[in-house]
């Protein structure tokens, strides 16, 4: 017994060994630190799993989906039943914008909000109710504008520049999601993408950007007083000719006249003259969101839908490519969405637009409605003085040239004809970007009609139909 006592000394629990109590306590501290980090990570894991569970279920196709509605409750997509249950043409105007769960389109409302549309909750599983997304679109107005295109292809987008609500967004041709994809091979090219979000040659609508850059560099008064002569063509210092659509020329004009005439030689001389140095133009373009000379610009985001930024190449003011680009041709590309956004910043006269949004609210499968709408502003795209001055120029342009189309509305706009070279096939697109100041339809818009012929509907006529369609929508 005594021998055993010699072999073992059993100190009570609080009595630590011998020589290194501090070190043994530190062992506890390190273990506690490890445990704390692990527990915190575990909490984060639990939170992630619970919040992302609808996404996991949706992406693996193990749940049903809810509905996407327009602002008045009209169905734009219904994942709870076969879409063929709906009348033909129900989704014809919104197919490539709202999309579906087939996986054929990845940049649509449904694809970007598949998680919120899943009829699944971590607590109730697939027994949960109907998830719903309510958009700001007016299906009625959208259909009206879509049908107004007739047999022409193109895009039209409009938003309330005061609130940010996207009211109309159509892109033709458009897939009819109710008909499925059996005839995918024979569908017209572009049916699966919304052209309002894809950069295209902007034509003379680009002169708005160039004018803004000139105002910012040389001041409003100075630029408005500038006069250049147009003789139908202007040859730059490098010997390259910039032609005007008016073969006999516009003569000597000031800025307002040149803007209304959409005179290429005038704006080419403006760029070449150095009154607005090229570095200054590049600076303004960059602030507006252009990717200039291959530099990276921020991708635009409309409730998850991504929109490639505008781009152009400006290397030397004496260079044809630079001048041509500043006139909206050549390598300059802008999406109708971004043209509309700038018009919003001009319409409010501040140079900063109200951020457009498409998804108004969502109702969770458990019936809880979450309002997602909020009025947010973009960063300062250009100065308020430039915005106000361009607003005046555009309003006068509208008054002088579009009084027939916009008779009852107070509008401002700029048209453009874009020379497109599509893999060797050359054609011209018509564009119109503008805004309406009337309280009945406070919208900024952009219309694109592809390969428009003289007998086709004009962009101004389409804009009028659009304004009538959205008029009175509160």
């Amino acid at each position, binding site marked *: 017994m005594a021998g055993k006592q010699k*072999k*073992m*000394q*059993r*100190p*009570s*629990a*609080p009595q*630590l*060994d*011998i*020589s*290194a109590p*501090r*070190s*043994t*306590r*530190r*062992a*506890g501290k*390190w*273990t*506690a630190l*490890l*445990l704390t980090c*692990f*527990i915190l*990570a*575990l909490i984060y*894991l*639990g939170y*992630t*799993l*619970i919040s*992302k*569970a*609808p996404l*996991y*279920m949706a*992406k*693996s196709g*193990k749940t049903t989906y809810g509905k996407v509605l327009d602002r008045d409750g009209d169905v734009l997509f219904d994942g709870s039943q076969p879409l063929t249950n709906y009348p033909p043409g129900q989704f014809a105007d919104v197919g490539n914008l709202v999309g579906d769960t087939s996986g054929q389109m990845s940049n649509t409302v449904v694809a970007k909000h598949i998680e919120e549309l899943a009829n*699944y909750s*971590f*607590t*109730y*599983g697939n027994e949960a109710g109907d998830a719903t997304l309510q958009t700001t679109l007016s299906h009625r107005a959208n259909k009206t504008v879509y049908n107004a295109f007739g047999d022409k292809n193109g895009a039209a987008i409009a938003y309330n520049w005061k609130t940010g609500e996207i009211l109309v967004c159509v892109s033709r041709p458009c897939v009819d999601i109710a008909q499925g994809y059996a005839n995918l091979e024979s569908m017209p090219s572009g049916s699966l993408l919304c052209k309002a979000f894809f950069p295209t040659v902007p034509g003379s609508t680009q002169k708005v950007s160039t004018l803004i850059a000139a105002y910012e560099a040389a001041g409003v008064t100075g630029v408005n007083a500038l006069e250049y002569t147009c003789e139908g063509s202007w040859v730059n210092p490098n010997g390259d000719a910039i032609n005007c659509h008016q073969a006999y020329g516009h003569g000597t004009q000031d800025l307002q006249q040149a803007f209304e005439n959409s005179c290429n030689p005038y704006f080419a001389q403006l760029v070449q003259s150095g009154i607005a140095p090229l570095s200054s133009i590049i600076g303004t373009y960059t602030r507006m969101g252009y990717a200039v000379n291959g530099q990276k610009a921020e991708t635009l985001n409309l409730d998850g839908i991504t929109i490639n930024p505008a781009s152009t190449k400006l290397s030397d003011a004496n260079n044809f490519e630079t001048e041509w680009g500043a006139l909206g041709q050549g390598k300059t590309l802008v999406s109708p969405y971004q043209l509309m956004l700038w018009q919003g910043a001009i319409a409010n006269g501040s140079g900063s637009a109200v951020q457009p949004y498409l998804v108004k609210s969502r109702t969770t499968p458990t019936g809880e409605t979450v309002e997602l709408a909020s009025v947010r502003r973009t960063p300062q795209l250009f100065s308020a003085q430039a915005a106000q001055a361009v607003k005046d120029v555009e309003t006068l342009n509208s008054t002088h040239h579009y009084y027939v189309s916009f008779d009852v509305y107070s509008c401002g706009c700029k048209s453009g004809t874009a020379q497109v070279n599509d893999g060797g096939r050359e054609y011209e697109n018509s564009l119109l970007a503008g805004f309406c100041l009337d309280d009945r339809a406070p919208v900024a818009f952009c219309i694109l009609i592809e390969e428009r012929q003289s007998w086709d509907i004009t962009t101004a006529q389409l804009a009028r139909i659009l304004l009538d369609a959205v008029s009175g929508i509160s």
Partner: protein
Amino acid sequence: MTKTKPISHPFLLLLVLIAHAAMMILVALSFGITAEVVKLACIVLTADFIGSIILQFVQREACTVDTVLLLVIGMSTIYQSCFGGLEFALKHFAFGVGAFLMCQASYLVTRNPYRAERMKPLWYALFFGLVAAIRFLTGSRSMWIDLGFITIQPSEFVKPVFVLICASSIRTQLKKASFLGIHFVPDNLLLIFCTGVIAVLQWWCRDLGSLPTFLAVAGFAFLLRFCYLREKISARLMIFLILCVIAAAVFAWKAAPAYVQERLHSDIWADMSGTGYQQVKALTAIAEGGWFGKGAGNGTLIRVAASRTDIVFSTICEEWGLFTGMMTVILVLFLPASILTVPPRSYYHSGLAVGVAAVFMVQMTLNIFGSCNLIPFTGVTIPFISQGGSSMLASGILAGFLKAAQAPVLTDRSTAKGGA
């Protein structure tokens, strides 16, 4: 001196029995009262009794580890028996029993820090023996030795041996040598060398999954040594150490081989039927399970490879629910956390305890967070929960170290100087 009244052993056993009985009721609700359910219940509950009786014959001062071990092994047996349908997981249970016995054995070997420290040459021999076995006996650049009737993963057994190598006494730390005017502790130099050997071996095997575990063990071993020798860490030195760790992590990230880079940057949802298959299935299974699961045996994840090992957390969550899955993980955490209630009684045991804590927590992190796509997915196991004999036995040995860390300190009969 006030003396804390310990919780009685029978009371703890009762808690284990209640927990296992509750689980068996849930199993019976899923499968009905069938012969297989009764068999499973009898085996698990009897094992609890027998385990408890065995514990009467070994040291009982540190009952937390034993109790948690009994509870975890029983739970794990029930889980593994119910995945995808009821069939008693005999092999898993047998290795669970083996782990329990290993725990008692390693406890007996390491409870006396002086003796364990004196046996260090043996640990080094074992370490290099295992490394040689991996290098020369395993298949082409794999971690497995195939004996025909059974496959062994020697790298799992390297973990407890490495923890033993990492643990050090103060006496050893005070033994300094000098070479070309540079003073160093030979034991620390050997540890660096062993860590390097492990890193090279893992790189050669193209299996870097366990490397973070070894690095964590070595890292904490140095932290403990550092803490003792300097007594107080200066902020500047701590920042320097953190920067070194970050730099090493960045270097490892950049220098990782192609197949690791692929895992680091892969989008599982973009390749749902390829590289992301297991994780997609695992995450979907957790979502399907919800809070309380589909019910024992009602899961479908069992059809996916590694559902009992690398993605076992998801398999548990699918059948038993996220709540039970989390509780199981926390229960396993009770093992390393036990040293917070009864602190290690010696410096040597501190090293053992922190090493085991590092192994358990890093392995669980790699397994759980990897299968849930929060970090790159690697094929490591959750101690005691995942199927795998080598892992189970090695985890049992490690649990024995924890138990030893809480045992009373024995006096060193060979020398009276120095601390352990």
